[in-house]
Every structure is written in C-alpha cells, then in structure tokens.
C-alpha cells in the first residue's frame, strides 16, 4: 500500500440551509488516481475548495502527510505540494502561454525570486518541459485568451505540471476533450502517477473514469456513498440510478 499524501476526515460545509458537503473522508495515495464522481451539485468542487482553503469547513479535518492543513490559506496549502485546476480554468488570460506556465514556477511574492539566474534557467526549463508535455510548445507566445478550447484545458494542466506539486486536485480537466486529446491527457496522468503523484480527478464521463482511475469515490448530496475499485462502483445498479438521475427514493 503506497503512502497516503492527502487525507480528509468528515469534512462538512453548509451554505445557508444547503448541506453541500456532509462529512467527506478521502485518502489520496501516492501514485494513484482517485476519481471523485457524482451527479451535478453532489459537492465535488466544494470538497476541493475545503481542502485547498478556498472555503472554510464547518467541521472536519484534512492533513498533508500527517500535517493538519485546516485554516491555512490557499497559497499555504499550495506550497505544501497541492496543485489544483478549476472547473472554469481561470487562466491568466492576457499574458502568453509561456508566461502562464512560468507563473506557476514562481512562488515567491517578493520583488524577485530566490536563487538568481541559475534558478531562473531551471524554472524556464521546467516551463518548457511542461509546454512540451502538453503539446503547447508551438503556442508558447500566443496569449491564453486566444487559445482554442482543448488548448486551454491543456494550458491549465501545463501550469499544474510546472508547479511540481505531488498532490493534484483536478476539477473536470478532461470534459469536452476529443478522443486524441483524452489519450494525451491520460498519458499526462500516467506519467505523473509513475513519479508518485497522488491525483484526485473529478470527471463526469464514466468511460474516462474507468480508463484512468485506480479507485472511485462516489459522492451524492455531500456524502461518499461508496468507495472502491472502479469496476465494482461502475457496475453498482443503485449508484447508476442515482448518477443517471432516477432516484429510487424520489419515485412516486
């Protein structure tokens, strides 16, 4: 069993009367892809936001390698090795593709980065490698806002690659990608897990989930209803009923 890099226990968060996340416990092992699936509004994105400190949890805890991270700011969580993507991408639209990725390698908020010109060259190399791996090298000088849909999704991935985090929280990174792009995306994930990165992947397309994930956590109405091997979860007729929208308890 590989090391658990990120662990959450009983995370909960309500918005007004809506219990968006109601006690989510997750474990992300190094070198594995854990898929987080569930219908719209199940609380998947909110779970990410609770872990990364974008939202404050009402209760529950989370640790990175045993270190508690509740109450930390998003940038502090990021510096502990967490990189996340956003469902709506949030690219740095008015700068170039290269600058988007370079920005991911520069974490010091001071007037200059530490390490001098040698460290700068290393960051540039990292950025170039990330662009190469995501197939964006030829577009390095284009502005992010001018990219096509799939290219934007890969730019979001390139930022994560360049950040050199070992925990990736990916919010629907493959949605709307064509088959060839999905294959490239799968290669990115496999290369990362081979290096020991722990990945949590939110994904609606169950074919993609079946192909890429090692484990599935099934979330509904803020709770993890089931967790296990992909084949077991995907074959469960009760979960399929919830996922595809005909809830038994809501039937007349």
């Amino acid at each position, binding site marked *: 069993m590989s090391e658990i890099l990120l662990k959450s226990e009983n995370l909960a968060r309500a918005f007004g009367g809506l219990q968006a996340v109601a006690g989510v416990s997750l474990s992300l092992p190094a070198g594995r892809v854990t898929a987080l699936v569930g219908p719209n509004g199940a609380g998947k994105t909110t779970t990410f936001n609770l872990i*990364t400190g*974008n939202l404050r949890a009402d209760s529950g805890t989370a640790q990175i390698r045993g270190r508690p991270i509740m109450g930390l*700011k*998003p*940038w502090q969580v*990021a*510096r502990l090795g967490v*990189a*996340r993507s*956003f469902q709506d991408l*949030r*690219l*740095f*639209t*008015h*700068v170039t593709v290269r*600058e*988007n990725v*370079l*920005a*991911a390698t*520069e*974490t*010091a*908020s*001071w*007037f*200059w*980065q530490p390490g001098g010109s040698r460290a700068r060259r290393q960051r540039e190399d990292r950025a170039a490698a990330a662009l190469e791996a995501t197939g964006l090298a030829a577009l390095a000088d284009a502005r992010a*806002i001018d990219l096509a849909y799939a290219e934007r999704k890969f730019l979001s991935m390139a*930022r994560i690659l360049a*950040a050199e985090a070992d925990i990736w929280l990916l919010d629907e990174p493959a949605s709307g990608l064509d088959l060839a792009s999905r294959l490239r995306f799968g290669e990115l994930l496999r290369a990362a897990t081979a290096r020991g990165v722990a990945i949590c992947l939110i994904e609606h397309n169950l074919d993609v989930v079946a192909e890429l994930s090692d484990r599935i956590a099934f979330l509904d109405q803020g709770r993890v209803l089931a967790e296990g091997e992909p084949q077991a979860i995907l074959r469960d007729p009760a979960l399929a009923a919830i996922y595809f929208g005909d809830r038994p308890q809501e039937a007349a």
Partner: protein
Amino acid sequence: MTAYLANLATLVAIFGILAATLNFVVGFAGIFSVAHAVFFGLGAYAGAQVALQLFPDALLACLVAAIVAGGLSLCLALPALRVRGEYFVAASLGLQMMATTLFSEAKAFTGGIGGLVAIPRPTVAGVEVGVLPLALAALALILFLTARLQRGAFGRTLQSIRDAESAAEALGKNVAAAKTLAVAFACAGAGIGGALFALHLSFVNVESFTMDQSVLVMAMVIIGGTGTLWGPLIGAILLLSLPSGLAFLPFIPATEVGAVQQIVYGLAMTLLMIFRPAGLVGDLSKGRATA
C-alpha cells in the same frame, strides 16, 4: 520661453512619475486606485517639511517622502486590499476624500488650507540645483525600475493576480503580500514625485492633492495606455501640454481656456475609448469587447 518650457518639462517629469507608478498598480496588479494624489500629497508635505525644518537637501527630501508615502500606503492599503475589484475603487475614493479633509485640517504638518510656503531652493550635497535635472533623473530611475519589475517575475505575479486571483493563489502566490508590495512601491514613487513638486513650486497646498488630481493622473494612464511602459509618460505629456497649447491659440479668449480645455479633454477621452480602448500606446487587440 525657456523658463516656460523648463517649467513644463519639470511638471511632465513629475506627472510622468505619478502616471508610471499608478500604471504599475492599475495596469499590472489590476488595483484600480483613485487615491494616487493622496500619496503625491504626503510626499509633497514630507519633502517640504524636510526642506523647511532641517535643510533643503533634495535627496533627503525624496527619501523621506518615499518612506512616508510608501509607509502610510501600507497602513491604509492593508485593510482596503482585502476587498476586491470595484469595492477597492470605492475604498480608495473614501481614502481620497478623507485625506483631502485631513490635509486641510492638520495645520502642523500641512499648513492647513494656506499650505506650506517659502520652501527653500533644493540643494544636493550643499550645492543648489534645479529641480528639472532631479525630476528627469527620478523619472528615468522610476521608469527603469518599473520596466524591470514589469518584465520580470514580479510583474508576472501581478498580472496573474489581475487575470485570475484565485488561480494565482492556488499556485502558491501570496496575493495580499504581492499587492501590498506593488502598492507600497507605487506610493513611494508618488511620494518622490510629491517632494520634487514641493521643491519645484516652493509652495504646496491641498488643492494639488484632491480628487481632481487623482482623476487627472488616472486619465494620463488610460489615455497613454494601461500596462505599457511609455504610455503613462505620453499621457502626462499630452495632458499637461494641452492647456498651454490651447492658451497659445489666438482665437480662444483667455477667459474661456478653462472651459474649452474641459471639453477637449472629455471629447478626447470619449473618442479614444471608442477607437483605441487600450490607450495610445496600448495593444490594439486588448480592451476591445470580444464577441
């Protein structure tokens, strides 16, 4: 005529400093402040007081002005930076209004409405110098520094915050720290501009540090092109030469110059935003409404 041109050039250099530093926060960090004249004023009063109370060393006056303006910007910006976007505009507006009143009331520091008068001629190392070379040197230094910062990692950090704050934070950037640094740098620069302004006129009062002045500097930045290096300077040259240019036109009666000037400004701004929304120097593809 040469005295006239020297005066104009000095003012252009001083307002070039103001516009370049404001552009740093507006164009790069996306922090839309309408209180830049407050820090211009703080620097002017601080520089004037150094010259009046201690000795009129220009470098000392600029240093003290930068520290006072930059330092106070920290206290004032820290709470304000916690609010986002359009709320910051409102917060800076409030700051500007408050500061104008304080400047008129804090007689010990500002001389009240009457202002500070008889500020001695500046010296450097004991030798009397003109403000023009000092202002040009300060402008060159500030343009050099902003260019360095804008093109390097810090500029990229600010631009990433401007474009997607939460994504910048998710990549480990301490957004509040970066914004605070950017504001402190810009306000320290504005403070230097203020000290030079006080030494140049040898008289300052609150009228130079009002909302109108903040808006004028903002107009320089927008007309020249936000986020560009030379745009703010070009904006400063244009907006400062325009009134004098109009005064030379024989067919405009001297009493009407002010009104004509306002109309020309307004018209120029409107036309510019229609035809070159990113400013004179700005990238044409930027700022257009995209379908």
